[in-house]
């Protein structure tokens, strides 16, 4: 008991300067503000749609006209070219080939993209932490089985696995017992992305759990009669928080990029539901006549991912000021995971 109390106090002492360091970082502040603006704007999508643009994300306006600078213009011209950005309430960022308002779709699409990224990251973290904790703590056969499964998942080309799962599920939907998930549901990209990234997170967690379990405080907890589950959740998990915190930003950033990639290949969000990835897919074919269709969602993705990455960098620096700056940690953990793959499943390191 006393040991836990002391450690708690210890942790507290360490976390406060981390927070202070984070608050002092100007880049982190800028990124946090940018992110808040993006998320806020996407959440306010219905407000923009109802009060400014006056149209929904899936409403076509093929034969409508809009007044720009006192001049009446077709939303979609006779030869099928949509209007570019008007920089005013209606068609602020122009229209797409169906005459849908790009700004409205961008905001609603952002909701979907961000929702998928956040939910997939949460799912991935839960699965990966559970798998890593159990494998690292239990060792033996359980570890061998989990590690082998992670090895197989790891050897799958991420995009192919994601696309194969995504296409197959989007076609047929998914049925787990009484729960039926429709093929066009956002749950499918969430599931796919959540699962695909599991080994990248579970392997480092497993390694850390392995070394933590040898520490005295774990022995102490066990001797005082704590069950395995209690040791894992009460003793190991709190010591993994900074590792998990570092992974959050990396996961969210990569999940946004993977959603875009899957939707671009037709294996993510299904039309007409907007997402940044599907919007890029629609826009790429029309780059010649209507570049705004690909530029707007692409810039939204870059801005969001950049903000998340910057924030992630700052969190990492704040947690460990001596760590080398930036993303190299991602590569390090990849290299670390790769070297872990070197010890065959079940072998002790």
């Amino acid at each position: 008991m006393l040991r836990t109390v002391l450690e708690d106090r210890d942790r507290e002492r360490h976390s406060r300067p981390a927070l202070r360091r984070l608050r002092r970082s100007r880049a982190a502040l800028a990124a946090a503000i940018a992110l808040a603006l993006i998320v806020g704007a996407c959440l306010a999508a219905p407000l923009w749609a109802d009060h400014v643009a006056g149209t929904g994300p899936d409403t076509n306006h093929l034969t409508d006209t809009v007044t720009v600078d006192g001049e009446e213009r077709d939303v979609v011209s006779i030869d099928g070219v949509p209007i570019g950005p008007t920089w005013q309430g209606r068609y602020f960022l122009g229209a797409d080939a169906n005459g849908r308002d790009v700004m409205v779709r961008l905001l609603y699409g952002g909701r979907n993209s961000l929702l998928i990224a956040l939910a997939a990251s949460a799912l991935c973290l839960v699965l990966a932490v559970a798998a890593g904790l159990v494998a690292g703590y239990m060792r033996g056969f359980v570890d061998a089985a989990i590690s082998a499964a992670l090895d197989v998942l790891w050897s799958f080309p991420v995009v192919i696995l994601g696309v194969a799962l995504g296409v197959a599920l989007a076609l047929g939907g998914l049925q787990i017992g009484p729960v039926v998930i429709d093929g066009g549901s956002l749950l499918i990209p969430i599931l796919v992305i959540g699962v695909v990234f599991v080994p990248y997170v579970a392997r480092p967690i497993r390694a850390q759990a392995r070394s933590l379990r040898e520490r005295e405080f774990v022995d102490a907890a066990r001797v005082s009669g704590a069950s395995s589950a209690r040791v894992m959740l009460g003793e190991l998990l709190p010591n993994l928080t900074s590792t998990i915190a570092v992974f959050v930003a990396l996961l969210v950033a990569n999940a946004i990029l993977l959603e875009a990639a899957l939707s671009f290949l037709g294996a993510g969000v299904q039309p007409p539901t907007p997402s940044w990835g599907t919007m890029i897919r629609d826009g790429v074919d029309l780059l010649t006549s209507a570049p705004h269709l690909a530029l707007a969602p692409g810039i939204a993705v870059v801005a969001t991912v950049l903000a998340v990455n910057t924030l992630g960098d700052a969190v990492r620096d704040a947690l460990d000021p001596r760590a080398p700056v930036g993303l190299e940690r991602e590569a390090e953990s990849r290299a670390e995971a790769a070297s872990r793959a070197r010890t065959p499943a079940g072998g002790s390191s």
Partner: protein
Amino acid sequence: MTRFAARRLAAMALVLVAVSFLTFLIFNVIPNGDPAVRMAGRAATDAQIEAIREDWGFDRGILVQYAETMEKLFTADLVSYFTRDNVVDEIVARSPRTLALAVGAAVLWMVGGVAVGMYGAVRAGGRADRAVTALALVAVSVPVFWLAALASHYLGFRLGAFPNGGYVPFAEDPLDWAHHLLLPWAVLALGIGALYSRIMRANVLDTLGEDYVRAARAKGITERRVLSRHVLRNSILPLVSLWGLDFAAVVGGGAILVESIFDLDGVGQYAASGIDSLDVPVVLGVTLFAAFFIVVLNAIADIVQAALDPRVAER
């Protein structure tokens, strides 16, 4: 050492079997995934569907089907469900294009990443270093297919500085070959190269603090020589094992996203078309092709590391 290598190779084979089975399963247990129905088309009668089912063996147990498919794969008899092309032949014919794409990009991101990272470390904290660090963060945040589409459109189509997609075999015209691949290489290399530059920068900064660097400087050799002989060599090592992994990731990922945009018609584009039509033999073939690179390059990295550092094999 030999035992370690043997064990590693056995594990490699097992992983490949598991990957192939999982791919097969994904496409076969999904509802509405019945290939016979899709092959027969819309206006098919039940009898036609049944005939196709029997013909292709879809009515047999999944394990039997899997075993037969794998046997066909290894005897190069596997054909696409829809085009009836031989999958193995198609992959073999297209692989030079994908490998040319991946190898060129890999060289570019390694050389670029090392050079930029080295520069950043030597100028650490300066304005140039901070600018490069910020640019690298932007580069890793860009979706590669979006960048590919923009580059192809603005630099290729509008500016006319690059050909408008397509591939020219090296043997036909080496210069034209490179001209067609330059843009795809650059696009693929940008994000990974940016990541490498950041790893390299951190490694160099670490190495610069080592005693042997101080000793080398104390001996009086020029800074240039210190950097090239002592710092560069030791900082580059961790990147080498990553290199293989990222190369494999490009074969099984980046290529699928980028090849169609530049119309390179390699294995990646083949994969994209197979995925679109749920053509199981095609997807299975391409997945194994890519997984093979991932698993083999992983194993090579392990064995090389074990050879360099005997402790790895003993664990």
